[in-house]
């Protein structure tokens, strides 16, 4: 019935990851102990509002946050049993070129404006685990195939295009093509489609979904929309201010919502059936320079007590693969 029940092999495990950005005034303590597990073939969603550390979390897996800008005071990221944080640049490059690929949030920003689609994709293939050692002709064939795989007609023509000659949807497809050019085991999709209008977004999601399933990849899908997550993922991790606050199988999250933040998120979704926008959550994400001492959600939480402001709740098992970090569940 569910893939998770059959495939129990863990491919990625993030344990208590903390990441601080260096800023002028000190450290911006963005990640405050993220826990995340991805099993083989599983589609995992990370949901949360803008600025909660979703992108930072996945970028730290690949080690692509510019150096000198951050500090990792604690935590581990195990990919297939090995901690990527302790790997040498050469080892981690092997993972980047052959194991994990990522689709970036903003397609216009993820493509270099002064090189053609072909030039960029050729270099990506050239240094990928599969493309290494292949001659130019073979590599071009791989690139054209990838462009075709994301349902773009006439790949030969697109090959010579510059990014600014393509529409937003086409650019996002090219980004996906770049990520699926060679076989990878884990795909990270950082809000693919957020920059696009709804119909195009739907097409992009479907394309991505079918490719992931066809190639038997695991997927981490970042989104701020619970609706998208419900449609595309097997399990959901709700993030708030650098913490995973609730984690469960997708249907379970919607059936037995536990964390007050997740509840708030659900109430914030406008419903077509009427009633307009519900209560939602007031306030905004805390200042990461001086985050709240206890639960980071406490200042906005309708159920916060004194305990919440003093102690940080751990992400605890509440049964049936359902975890939550709250004192009041």
């Amino acid at each position, binding site marked *: 019935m569910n893939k998770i029940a059959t495939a129990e092999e863990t491919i990625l495990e993030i344990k208590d990851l903390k990441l601080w950005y260096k800023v002028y005034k000190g450290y911006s303590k963005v990640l405050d102990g993220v826990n995340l597990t991805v099993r083989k073939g599983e589609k995992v969603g990370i949901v949360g509002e803008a600025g909660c550390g979703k992108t930072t979390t996945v970028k730290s897996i690949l080690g692509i946050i*510019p150096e000198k800008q951050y500090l990792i005071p604690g935590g581990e990221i195990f990919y297939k049993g090995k901690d990527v944080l302790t790997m040498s640049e050469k080892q981690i490059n092997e993972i*980047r070129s052959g194991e994990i*690929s990522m689709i970036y949030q903003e397609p216009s920003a993820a493509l270099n404006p002064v090189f053609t689609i072909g030039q960029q994709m050729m270099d990506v293939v050239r240094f990928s685990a599969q493309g290494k050692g292949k001659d130019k002709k073979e590599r071009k064939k791989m690139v054209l195939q990838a462009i075709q795989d994301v349902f773009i007609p006439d790949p030969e023509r697109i090959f010579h295009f510059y990014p600014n000659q393509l529409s937003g949807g086409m650019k996002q497809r090219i980004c996906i093509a770049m990520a699926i050019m060679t076989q990878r085991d884990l795909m990270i999709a950082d809000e693919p489609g957020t920059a696009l209008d709804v119909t195009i977004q739907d097409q992009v999601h479907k394309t991505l979904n079918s490719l992931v399933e066809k190639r038997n990849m695991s997927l981490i899908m970042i989104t701020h929309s619970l609706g998208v997550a419900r449609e595309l993922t097997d399990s959901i991790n709700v993030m708030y201010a650098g913490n995973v606050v609730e984690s469960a199988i997708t249907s379970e999250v919607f059936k037995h919502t536990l964390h007050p933040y997740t509840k708030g998120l659900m109430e914030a979704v406008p419903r077509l059936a009427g009633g307009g926008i519900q209560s939602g959550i007031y306030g905004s994400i805390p200042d990461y320079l001086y985050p709240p001492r206890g639960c980071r959600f406490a200042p906005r939480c309708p159920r916060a007590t004194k305990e919440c402001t003093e102690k940080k709740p751990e992400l605890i098992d509440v049964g049936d693969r359902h975890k939550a970090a709250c004192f009041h569940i």
Partner: protein
Amino acid sequence: MNFKRFILHRLLLSIIVIFGLSIVIFCIARIIPGDPARMALGATATDYALENFREENHLNEVLPVQYVYWIGGVLRGDFGISTMTSRPVSGDIMEFLPATLEVVVLAALFLVVGSIFLGTLAAKHRDSVLDGLIRVFSYAGVAMPGFVLAILLMLLFGYVWPVIPVLGRLSHGITSPPSITGMYTVDSLLSGDFKTFWNAFLHTLVPALALCAGGMFQEARLVRNAMTENMGRDYLAAMKGYGVPNRLIMNKYLLKPSLIPAVSCMGMDIASLMSNAFLIEVIFGWPGISKYGMNGMLAKDLNAISGVIMVFGILFVGINILVDIIVAYLDPRIRLGGGK
């Protein structure tokens, strides 16, 4: 296809610009106070001689008619006779222009190579001592006029540490190479005389350095800023995330987009090197065209002034077209007009 049309468009536009320039130059040269006939023939010339001179040079006609005479000559490559040297202006230009070009070309080379090299270096070692040093130099480069630097360099290499010659085009006792292009370095190379080449090259070095330093450090800053700004871009993170080696990301995917602002600025700087060369030529005793043109203005040598400025104008426009083409090559968004 689009690219060809783009270049054609620029060429046609530049012809109009040069035509306009010729009118402006022609008028300005004649508005400068002073009687060209008196200036040419001296204080003791007779009225008859002056009148004769005016008649010969069409100075009694109204300005539009004078212009037609002059532009007609220019189109045939005849800029008239210089009253300073009593030779055809075109011949004078052919003699003095190569000397200036020799310095300017080397200065332009320093400017381009130096600014990209220093800018990349500063960006790579951002916020280090080296970066700070380049920053200081770039501010100093803006603040300090070229001739001050020229004098300082002259003091350094002529007196304190005399390893590079600082006066003239060749050392005493070295004969100039056979004139082919008029540029000593090129001519000596063409005739296979390496000793003369080296000597001529050393003589060009300090003037070229003095000429380009200000622009070079400024543009290094531009390259550095563009690079540090682009370093955080997603497309570089993406490339890194796909396992593309850092060296390639830096030298290809970061460098090319970062050059665009600097190249536009370099174009302007290189074009104005020609006219900035005057003070450098005076200081280093360099027999160049800027010096010739300036002397022409002091002597109200109408043909020399117009001729020199026309040459400057044509070179300026030519360099600008070249820069536009380079920028269009670097940035497809300009080349393709942003459309589909």
